């Protein structure tokens, strides 16, 4: 199957590959997997105390569409508030990368990775300031 030019661009020249230290301040880590194809995706977000995503890194083992979806997402979320990032739907990724129907699950994975990374950040933040009241989700 031929990949779209946007997928190819992210696949051959992925943006923001790598990782932050898991325990680094302000870092949220999300690891999500797709059992039907064996793919696994790690997305890390560096988030300010005000809840703005300052930087992102990813590492994905999987097909070109999974790599492209996560690479695109790292660009997409930078500078966004966590509420905005949480509102990102996989359909946006599908549209941007022209993903065919059989690859839609790759975009779902990337959407799940954002949510998992933010929830990890919130959890870690909560543990750090456990005397503070929990913020409503």
């Amino acid at each position, binding site marked *: 199957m031929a990949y779209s030019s946007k997928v190819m661009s992210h696949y051959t020249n992925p943006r923001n590959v790598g990782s932050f230290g898991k325990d680094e301040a302000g870092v949220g880590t999300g*690891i*999500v*997997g797709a*059992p*039907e194809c*064996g793919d*696994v995706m790690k997305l890390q977000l560096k988030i300010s105390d005000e809840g703005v995503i300052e930087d992102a890194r990813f590492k994905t083992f999987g097909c070109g569409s999974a790599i492209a979806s996560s690479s695109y997402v790292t660009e997409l979320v930078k500078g966004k508030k966590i509420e905005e990032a949480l509102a990102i739907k996989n359909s946006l990724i599908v549209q941007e990368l022209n993903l065919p129907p059989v690859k839609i*699950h790759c975009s*779902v994975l990337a959407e799940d990775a954002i949510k998992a990374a933010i929830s990890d950040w919130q959890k870690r933040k909560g543990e750090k300031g456990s005397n503070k009241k929990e913020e409503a989700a």
Partner: protein
Amino acid sequence: MCAQCGGPVAAELDLFGALGMPRRLVIEPAELEQRYHDLGRRIHPDRFASGAPAVKEASLKGTALLTRAYRVLRDPVSRGLYWLELNGEKLSDDNKQVPPELAALVFEVQEQLAELREASEPTASESLAAAIREWRGTVQEAMDRARDALAMNFAKWDEGRAEPNSLIAELKKTLSEIAYLRTLLRDIDRELEPPSLSG
């Protein structure tokens, strides 16, 4: 083809029915083997070589169905997937989120496999390979646990101890975990195999 009279049977027989078995999830392998071989002999195309064309065709079709039934029902994983299908369910219809600790395990192993592929120093690749062999044990243990969980849920269903919707959700979860682990084991074994001489 009917095993008793040799006449054609309804084409809509499900795979449990093809082997003359009730639609139960727990299957004794020895019983499955025996039924497959007994029925296979009875409806074997050689026995109907001089029969009417319709009978010959029924024998061929029946044999094909029987073989498919045997292959699908023999393996608990494919049996579970088939059972979901009979109940109008598919793995892909579900939310495919896997437990975080399983995703983390897969990520960890895949990262090491990537390192092994990129290692140029023989000593480095040897120690990486040793580490991966150890990981393989962990992955296999997770697989054994998932298979035990599958067997337990099969029994629960047969004994009528499970609420259908929650059992279907549970089966989907376990079957997708098994699929994930199976792919991972395959990837590990592919990397650990000695390179072929022709390569």
